[in-house]
């Protein structure tokens, strides 16, 4: 085992641990001691087998910055140097990399960005005792040594001027945070009002453990934000939506398919299907590895399923013919839909997941909640599913949460609340709160 320093992003704290834990679990990394993890700190020291394992763990993470081979730490630079010299492995590390080209980098946490009166050159020179013999390269250096400075911020918005703690390490792997740029909605050809922002959709796919070469399904695909995230992590993605207009896009240049083309991941996108999730046409013996979605909540879009609201109105309609052809078989026929409750839809989603996911497979979906104090949020439960995470993202007057379940199979005997009314009308509460 070797000691590593993980430097995390100090944001989305309700999601951060779930992400690194899910990725470690995905790659069977069991040596991490999460009792050292704290929401207050962007640092986590972890014992790992080797660099390769460290790299595997962090390379697709969104809510971390990088992982380093740990060399030392200390309050002042002097303390830091002392710590480095004291580590039993320092001598070996130097031997291992001394001939490699290298450079130094500085990272800061809560520092004042306008503070540039630190002499970085002098700081680098203070590491002279390491006696690296390789060439200094600003570009493509083989080894990057990093000083991470932690500052005491002046206030919530103003960074500190003087570092209060230092870490030193050799960069092993940067995270996948740059993917946020690539998938930024501003640059996406086809998007809509229901599109989900890049950062948390990628995080969702990580927590859902989307795996390369497997199948991911978004039953409520809309403009395909989660399909894009799943495709990024290498799954074959399939979407469905009851509203054909959502998934059709706006011509060949602005469609879900063209999004995948732009991202260079066209083979990952299978199809989007116009379909009512509750009248599902994916063959029953098709194993779906991951289900990831943002179900309709009746805010921007209504919750509807196939069927007539007033069946008597439709009696005998199946016999109507147009030009000698059954009307309901015509290319332009639009079937009627009826309202459905959110509770029932989520019950269906949980049940479907237990039928289609492999044991250990994950269902992850978003659920909005109004922040009125006196209404308890009841999370839907199924006896075969373990609720693994309930990560809240708070907005001012409402919040939404990512619920993540693991399929445990028939013997699990978890609690269930299927068939019960859990939510009062979110739409009403949502709008009431905004008025």
């Amino acid at each position, binding site marked *: 085992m070797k000691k590593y320093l993980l430097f995390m992003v100090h944001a989305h704290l309700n999601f951060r641990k779930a992400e690194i834990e899910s990725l470690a679990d995905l790659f069977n990394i069991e040596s991490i001691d999460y009792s050292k993890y704290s929401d207050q700190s962007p640092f986590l020291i972890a014992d790992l087998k080797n660099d390769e394992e460290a790299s595997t763990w962090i390379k697709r993470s969104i809510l971390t910055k990088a992982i380093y081979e740990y060399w030392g730490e200390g309050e002042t630079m002097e303390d830091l140097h002392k710590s480095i010299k004291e580590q039993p492995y320092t001598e070996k590390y130097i031997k291992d990399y001394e001939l490699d080209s290298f450079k130094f980098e500085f990272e800061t946490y809560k520092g004042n960005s306008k503070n540039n009166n630190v002499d970085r050159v002098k700081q680098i020179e203070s590491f002279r005792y390491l006696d690296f013999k390789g060439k200094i390269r600003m570009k493509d250096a083989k080894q990057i040594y990093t000083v991470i400075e932690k500052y005491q911020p002046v206030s919530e918005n103003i960074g500190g001027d003087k570092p209060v703690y230092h870490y030193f390490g050799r960069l092993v792997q940067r995270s996948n945070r740059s993917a946020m740029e690539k998938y930024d909605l501003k640059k996406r050809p086809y998007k809509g009002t229901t599109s989900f922002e890049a950062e948390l959709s990628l995080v969702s796919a990580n927590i859902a453990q989307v795996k*390369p*070469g497997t199948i991911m399904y978004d039953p409520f695909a809309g403009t395909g934000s989660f399909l894009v995230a799943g495709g990024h992590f290498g799954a074959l993605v399939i979407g469905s939506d009851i509203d*054909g207009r959502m998934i*059709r896009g706006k011509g060949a240049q602005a469609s879900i398919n063209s999004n995948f083309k732009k991202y260079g991941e066209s*083979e990952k996108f*299978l199809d989007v299907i*116009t379909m009512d999730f509750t009248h599902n046409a994916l063959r029953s013996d*098709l194993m779906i590895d991951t289900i990831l979605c943002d179900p309709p909540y009746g805010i921007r879009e209504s919750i509807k399923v196939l*069927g007539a609201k007033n069946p008597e109105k439709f009696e005998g309609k199946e016999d109507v013919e147009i030009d000698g052809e059954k009307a309901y078989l015509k290319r332009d026929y639009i079937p009627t839909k009826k309202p459905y409750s959110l509770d029932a839809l989520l019950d269906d989603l949980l049940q479907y997941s237990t039928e289609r996911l492999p044991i250990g497979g994950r269902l992850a979906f978003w659920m909005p909640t109004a922040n009125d104090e006196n209404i308890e949020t009841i999370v839907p439960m199924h006896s075969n599913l373990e609720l693994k995470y309930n990560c809240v993202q708070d907005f001012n007057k409402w919040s939404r949460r990512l619920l993540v379940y693991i399929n445990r199979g028939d013997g699990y005997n978890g609690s269930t609340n299927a068939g019960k009314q859990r939510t009062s009308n979110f739409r009403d509460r949502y709008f009431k709160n905004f008025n």
Partner: protein
Amino acid sequence: MKFLTTNFLKCSVGACDNSNDNFPLRYEGSKCQIVQDETVEFNPQFLLNILDRVDWNAIVTVARELGNQSLPVTKPQFTHQNGDANTASNLTEDELAVLQDLHVLLLQTSIAEGQMSCRNCNHIYHIKNGIPNLLLPPHLA
């Protein structure tokens, strides 16, 4: 709608789940406009993994209906395919060629316009602008 999708779609009429004829759906070659998109990238490793999920008999059936009689009756096997450690890196040239052909068929070939129907209840589903529509009229929903 990509050819591979024909391998995943059954009839959405619930009652047809009790029949063995609700999958694959029936495709009439003369009523389907087939297009090929050569820009869909060839990713051998990815395709190898996905092939594990494919119901080969259904692939052969639908390919025939759409005018392709050339597929072998049994699923091509790749020598270096063992368990979930599928690796594309040591495929032979012949195997790679087979995989490339499958890529063209499964991921580059699609139905732009057309229809499909259930072998059990005969309900017709349309494919419009490349998107299959599996919605049902109220008497079947």
